């Protein structure tokens, strides 16, 4: 499905404008025909059936729908699907490999970085964008990077711990203190 359902008279000329959109979704080329008013969040969820991206507030506040757009975190409820044409989109499904969790996912598991889990995909992608830019963040950096994502369960403590855990793990995987960040 590509857009809202609308029954039309059998004889009516089909005037609804439809555009082709082709994205690299979690590394895979995917294309669809969509109405321009379809939101990116809905292209991902209803269109491509990747339901890990959540729509929470639907008003650009909560960040549950956060995905990476060419590597930068965006609120996918606040972009049109057609705007993603020719771009790269990473959702939470793109974090893990077939056999292994991403260190950020491991961190959320190990540090109990979630309770109900609704905000978690957005949190993890915002965290990934942070760690891609800054592999050695302070607690303040993490709180700052996640300040556009709301969690109503945890009080954020364990989310912050989870991201710091992942930062450690990623640094270890990339050759320990090679970056000069650790004492």
């Amino acid at each position: 499905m590509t857009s809202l359902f609308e029954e039309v008279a059998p004889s009516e000329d089909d005037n609804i404008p439809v555009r082709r959109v082709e994205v690299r979704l979690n590394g895979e080329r995917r294309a669809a025909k969509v109405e321009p008013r379809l939101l990116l969040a809905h292209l991902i969820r209803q269109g491509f059936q990747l339901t890990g991206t959540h729509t929470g507030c639907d008003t650009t506040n909560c960040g549950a729908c956060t995905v990476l757009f060419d590597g930068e975190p965006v609120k996918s409820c606040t972009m049109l699907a057609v705007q993603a044409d020719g771009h790269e989109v990473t959702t939470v499904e793109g974090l893990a490999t077939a056999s292994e969790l991403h260190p950020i996912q491991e961190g959320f598991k190990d540090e109990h970085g979630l309770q109900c889990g609704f905000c978690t995909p957005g949190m993890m992608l915002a965290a990934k964008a942070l760690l891609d830019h800054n592999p050695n963040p302070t607690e303040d950096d993490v709180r700052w990077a996640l300040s556009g994502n709301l969690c109503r369960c945890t009080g954020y403590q364990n989310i912050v711990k989870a991201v710091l855990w992942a930062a450690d793990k990623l640094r270890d995987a990339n050759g320990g203190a090679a970056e000069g960040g650790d004492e």
Partner: protein
Amino acid sequence: MYPSRFKYETPSTVEEAIGLLHDGGTDAKILAGGQSLIPMMKLRFAAPGTIVDINNIPGLDYMRTESDGTFRVGALVRHVDLERATELKDSQPTIAAAAHLVADPIVRTRGTFVGSLCHADPQGDWASCMVALDGSVVAQGPKGRRTIGVDEFVKGPFTTVLAPDELAVEALVPKAQGVRSGGYLKLERRIGDFATAGVAVAIERNGDVVSRAGIGLTGVGSRTINAEEAAAAVVGQPLTAETIERAGYLAAAISDPRSDHRGSADYKRHIVATFVTRLLTSMQPTREQSTEERVA
């Protein structure tokens, strides 16, 4: 929530975009960052018949200081670009101070500086900064370009003087006539919420004497407020505790906030006076600095 149905256009030049705006009449709208427009379309506060998406127009994402000292920001510069531009801390301190306070970090990756000015939300941080800096917007239409001072550009809440077939191609800050200092403070209940109150200050100095000052106020009236009298109170003399207090008093007096769940009108006026005082006090040269400047 879905926006109403619209025609979607993706011009690849500014001229093409203006042509599409012209054809669309009052029913066409520019989409740049979309962080205000798309939410408004989803709520059906806005239902444009044509969306002209300028994101595919190359060459609009520049930000640079020209040889004549003018700072220019193209229509596709995102908030995050300004936040990451550490060199602005010295050359454009007001803008650098506000960059990490606009909306939230994720909205900042999409939203644009010029788009925020065009949205003309009385809660917009950039309009206050630009008022303080005496900045302008450059609009391009079928008949060419014109430069409009931000104070004149913003007509009222969510209303600008842009003609329906004009595109705001860039914003500019004029060269400082002296040494520029500036800052921005915003009180918000949580990141991403509307400001309870915000204050932008920009001053220029020759030696100790303030040669120019500008103060813009966020979220304390039905439009961005240019606190001209407050700014004038510090011009023509060095910053002193007395002139600073006077500026704070006058800025609070020209504020016109409404009492709401973010605070009473009196409280917001108090915040304005406090922020103006705090910002100007931080710009007072320390004794060592002023000696150095005199020696130099």
